[in-house]
């Protein structure tokens, strides 16, 4: 059976015509369409949530106790206490929401041509790294440990031919599923590249060379 027939386009069925539109992200090429988008697992928000809960309980609790035990005519202390409460609650609200938005602004976009690591933050930082699928030699997936298994998050690392790490995505959601998608997309890209090279060779009148990709597709 040909591997080509077995290949399922991972993004197209799910997304339908949604990503047929252009300009889905900055720097998108004309022939580029999105196969999938990966975001990090919500476990990365755990430190933020803990800081918020601990901070609110400590400062609001201490201020409430102060207000409880001071004499009723000490209006100045009450005013200071309320002012500190407002200042602290405002800072906590900013911290929580900005972290939450930053979480949703960090994405990994897998297209038919490239893998794009988007690292935006709400105001100051805009960073995008793109890697052509042809440059990837090896893709590793790691999901070790009980919590990673139970909550289904892990790490995907990509290497080039010389063994250097090109991308290291930590705390990704559904690592196994996304690993399979990246593998399929990578295989498809390499296969199309070999086909183009062969057609060029034929056009030039040379006999195309046998390649590893051809061996696989004929099995």
């Amino acid at each position, binding site marked *: 059976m040909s591997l080509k027939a077995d290949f399922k386009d991972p993004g197209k069925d799910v997304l339908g015509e949604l*990503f047929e539109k252009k*300009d889905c*992200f900055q720097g998108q090429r004309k022939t580029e369409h999105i196969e999938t*988008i*990966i975001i990090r697992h919500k476990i990365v928000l755990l430190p933020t949530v803990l800081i918020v809960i601990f901070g609110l309980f400590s400062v609001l609790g201490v201020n409430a106790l102060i207000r409880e035990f001071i004499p009723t005519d000490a209006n100045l202390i009450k*005013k200071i206490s309320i002012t500190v*409460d*407002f200042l602290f609650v405002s800072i906590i609200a900013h911290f929580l929401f900005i972290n939450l938005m930053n979480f949703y602004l960090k994405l990994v976009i897998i297209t038919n041509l490239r893998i794009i690591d988007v690292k935006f933050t709400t*105001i100051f930082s*805009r960073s995008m790294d793109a890697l052509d699928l042809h440059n990837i030699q090896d893709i590793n997936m790691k999901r070790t440990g009980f919590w990673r298994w139970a909550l289904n998050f892990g790490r995907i690392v990509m290497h080039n031919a010389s063994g250097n790490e090109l991308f290291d995505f930590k705390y990704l959601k559904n690592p196994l599923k996304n690993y399979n998608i990246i593998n399929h997309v990578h295989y498809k890209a390499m296969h199309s590249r070999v086909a183009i090279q062969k057609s060029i060779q034929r056009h030039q009148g040379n006999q195309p060379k046998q390649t590893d990709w051809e061996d696989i597709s004929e099995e």
Partner: protein
Amino acid sequence: MQNFFIFFLLGTAILSLLTGLLVVFSIYKISSKNRLLIYKNPFTPKLPIRKLALIYLFVIIALGIGFNFYFFFFL
């Protein structure tokens, strides 16, 4: 002393509001150039980023108004 607290509370509320507006403006600008952030699909969050930004702005405004109201009328 009373004036100091009034200026401090109102100043903090206004600074907070300005920060919120800056963040919301920035989010709208990012998502208009990267439209995948606002599509509802299985991969992007169930709560789209623009709605989240508006909720954030609402919370900031509510906190500012609430605390100032409490300070002026109950203390």
